[in-house]
């Protein structure tokens, strides 16, 4: 545990001493809950359509696959015309693309970023590394199966997959969303303990609350 997260005794301006426990006092401790869709089906369908047509990707490149995402913004591929755009903050993004290998250190950040996104949210694994470790299958420092740690909606294979493959993948994801099958966030909430156990198994210096709101 990092020093700044340890319990500490501080003295208030009135001279009274008290304890501050950063993990409890500075972070929300609530666990995620399953969030059902709208009660009326037609409304949920409308929302699913809107979600599918408005994929906001978190600008977070975890590995070498990130280089394949940049061309999507360029005139050649122009993903914007499919309702895809990039957001710099996880709060406003609803698609997390794990672009390539994921070291344990980055996994921690990816989990944080994922948890800070709002339900419904989607994870796409990009390239073989996210599927089975790829060429890093025996590395001491990268995870081998992304779906052990985050609810993956879709994998796009390749090492690396080309931008066209990404576009095709996004198209598939849209279909999933429109069909109401992309409920990764709820899945994550339902199997929260399982995911946490997996995450903590590889992240040995767990220095954050269980769920990063």
């Amino acid at each position: 545990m990092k020093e700044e997260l340890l319990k500490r005794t501080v003295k208030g301006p009135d001279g009274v001493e008290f304890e501050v426990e950063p993990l409890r006092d500075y972070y929300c401790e609530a666990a995620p809950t399953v969030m059902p869709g709208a009660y009326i089906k037609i409304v949920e369908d409308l929302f699913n359509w809107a979600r599918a047509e408005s994929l906001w990707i978190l600008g977070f490149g975890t590995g070498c696959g990130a280089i394949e995402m940049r061309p999507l913004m360029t005139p050649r591929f122009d993903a914007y015309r499919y309702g895809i755009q990039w957001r710099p903050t996880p709060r406003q993004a609803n698609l997390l693309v794990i672009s390539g290998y994921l070291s344990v250190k980055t996994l921690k950040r990816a989990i944080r970023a994922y948890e800070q996104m709002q339900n419904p949210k989607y994870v796409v694994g990009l390239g073989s590394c996210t599927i089975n470790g790829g060429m890093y299958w025996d590395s001491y420092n990268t995870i081998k199966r992304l779906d052990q740690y985050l609810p993956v909606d879709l994998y796009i294979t390749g090492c690396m997959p080309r931008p066209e493959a990404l576009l095709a993948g996004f198209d598939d994801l849209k279909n999933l969303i429109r069909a109401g099958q992309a409920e990764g966030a709820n899945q994550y909430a339902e199997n929260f303990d399982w995911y946490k156990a997996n995450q903590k198994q590889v992240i040995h210096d767990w220095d954050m609350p269980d769920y990063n709101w």
Partner: protein
Amino acid sequence: MLSPLYLVAAALAASFTLGLLNPKRSGAAYAITLVTLAFMAWVPAGWLWGFMAEGAQPVEIYTAGALPPYAINLRMGLAEAAMTLLITLTGLLSALYLKESLIKLGHRGMAVLMVALMAFCGIVLTRDLFNLFVFFELAAISTAGLILLSEDERALSAGFKYLIVSQLVSTFLLIGILFAYHASGTLNLDTMASARLPHGSAPSFALAFFLMFIALVTELKPFPANGWALDIYESAHPAYSALFSAAAATASLYAVDKLLLVGGPGWYPMATGIGITTFLAANLFALPQGNDRRLLGYSSLAQIGLILVVLGQRDLLGEGTPFIAFGLLVSHAVAKAGLYWLSGLVGGRSLTDWAALRGRPLLVFAFISFVAMLTSLPPFPGFYAKWELVRVLAGEGRLALLALILIGALVEAGYLFRWFGYMLKREAPAEAVNGEPHQVVPVYVAVLAGWVLGYFWGELSGVGLGHHNLLLSLPLAFALGFLLLDWLPAWVKNTLAITGMVAFFFLTYAEYDPLRLIFALIFLIGGAITLLASYDAHGRRIGFYPAAMLMYAGMVMLVRANDSFEFFAAWELLTLGSYFLILRGKHSEPHALSYILFSLGGAFLILAGFALAAGGAAQFPITALGQVAPAVAPWVFLLLATGFMTKTAAIGLHIWLPGAHAEAETDVSPMVSGILLKAGLFGLFVLLMAMGKQRLYGVELTHVLLWVAAFTALLGNLMAVFQEDAKRLLAYSSIGQMGYALFGLALMNHLGWLMALMFVINHYIYKSMLFLSVGGVAKRTGTREMYRMGGLIRLMPLSFIAVLIGIIAISGVPPLSGFGGRWIFYNAILASDYRLPMVILFLAGPVAFLYLFRLIHSIFLGQLKDELRRVKEAPFWIALPQMLYVGLLLAFALAPGLALRRVDTYLNLFFPEGGLHWEGFEITSDYGYWNPVAIMIVVAVIFVSLFAWLLFVNRRAQKVKQFNIVFSAERPFRPETTHFAWNFFAPYRKALGFLVQPYATTFWGALTDFLHTAGDLARRLYDGNGQSYALHFLAFVVIVFGVGV
């Protein structure tokens, strides 16, 4: 009434009796001394009573049974009675004070003391020149004796130097008398005076007179022939110094006065010249002085110099001379004697050692009473004297002299108030003051005498000049009453104060015109609301209520003032009261000093302005400012406007404000900011209402004012942007806001004034509210630095609401009341003849957003710190007025007409054009329209609907904590490193920081440094060597001779 001769006889008889007494029985000798001195005081007291109450006539006492010039005669008149009473009383009290010392010295010492007093009285009483010489010799010898009897070893050399100088003086005097006798054939002063005309032209007489004059003047310790006196003041026992300063100086002054009678008006300029040089030089030298007694010595020299100036201005002052000279003299004598006595109670000789007095509130009160007497503040005699002196000097056009006097007085106030600051604020030495009753009583008697004399001079001024006795005015009396009630617990006094203020308002509200009513409301009712916060204080809070009520009394008197005298007196009172209030802050010593100096400087300008306007008239109604002669009118305008602008802290004169407002106590800041600043604006209102536009060298002064106001608004706001200290930020913001108000006034049209008034009201409400809120936060968090706070919104929601409402209002965003000010502002500038100054003001407007956002963000939003996690909401009594202000602000936002409509009509008197039309809730001007209620409703309806919609779609929102923020997939390290608050507007400083270089501070700092350095260099003249002192004396004689004759 006993014959004045008893004065001499009693002293001599008692001295001889003492000689007969067994030397071991010093107790008895002391008793005899006291009785004799009491008797000596009784004699003139009886006479004074006779003259004052029973209308007795002056008597001449002829010795040797012959009429002068054949015999010596003494005179007992009103002046003589007063002076001898002053001398003998000082003597009596000093003797009392000297109990141990005298008993130790034995009967010889007591005899010398009595002889000295007798000699002083003789100098006052005698009308014969040679007799005068004799008494002077007696005085010199006995004084030297007194000095030599002091315990300090340095006194020995000081006494010796004194003897050298006295011998020179005596020689000059004697030779002069010889020649004068030769020239006039008489030694009697009155005969000589009446014989002056035929002999006046004779060079021999002139030389003779010069010799006598120079000798007597030297007794007054003129610059530079006064080094010896300083050494005495510094080294002699303080009681002797008291005598020396009060009694001996009185006697010498009267001697000079008598001699001037002989010399005639031809010698007046010389007296004036010597006096003013001494006054200025002594005050300048006192500035860097660190030794208390030597400082008092310098101050004594200065005061005597000033009185000499008054004597020298006899040709102008005429009948009024005694009123002024005595006013200054008694102020000086009482205060200086009191201060010297006090200095005996203080262990250390450094000025800061006086902090030891702090444990004794009564002595502190004594000290400040003395300081106020010396600086001629109301209600002491010096105040009336100063007013009168300035009035006459200005009326007769002696402006250079007037300026010099005022400059000297300001310097004097500077070191005296600095000293007072040390006393209250510096670390107290370990040894406490333990004054024996016989040492303390004289001090208290002096204080009492000071106040009584103040009353007395008030009466005199009432009789002679038709002024109202200040001590009899209800508000001041009410304020001073708190001095007597200071033993009560604070909440009782607070209740009394609030009741008194509210009651006074309801008793008098019918008397104000609509404009004054607004100010009276703010001063009285507003003051009462602010005072609610003072319930939070515990204990007795000694000194707070007299000071606060003095300020409020001053403000009320200001609003009610009809003539310039009342106005100025009120101005000085409120300045003094607010100074005490500001000084109460923990670290406010330097800021309070700079406040009082700027305020007094401003007050002197106002004084000069009024005097110039009055042109010598004793009574000058404020409204008569409009009828001032065109030649002086712009100058009057300039003086008064600058004076008032020191109070509103216009740019350049603003440097006192931030410190003073920021360092003041929590409940004082809103008083001095929200309320006190309005006094300056009121002054400007009064000035502009009466004088209107003025041109000086073709430049329209209101146009200049407009530019000053615009830059004040801009730079005040800009400086606020870069503050880290929340209260300083608010203080700078006040400068900016005052700039706006001033701008409105200077627009010189109907709406401009209405806008100024709107700012007056708004600024009162929101600045009081913000200062209270920030003060409450500072109280709870123990810091004023904003970046140390953060995230307090949840812990202090009420304070947050107050600040939120406050900043919305200040920034002028609809629907709160600040918008009304902006709306009127736009309409006013459209009607104005000027355009370019608006550019500056337009820039100033959005700058306010910067500091306002910073204020609320850094304190209430952002990240909460570890230590502040358990902070509580501000105390109830600090929060309550804030909530009242919130209510007031909303009410004023909805219905500005409640306050403004009547004033709008009233302003038609001055500007018939361009008023507003009030119809229902809608307000229409010549250009546009505005409906505050409609705006409020529309905004509220939209806001509430959207809020309801958000609540519906967002009903499942998870409440998170402060570190649950996206941080580039990292997490915040600590709240301190996550709270973005310090140097919040760094890019702005890069872009416009050059505008807020502290030029004004540098200028004023350089000026004071220069004065200090000059004083420090020049006072090396006094090297403590008797020979150089003799040289100084000769140089003085030569210079005076060269210049004067």
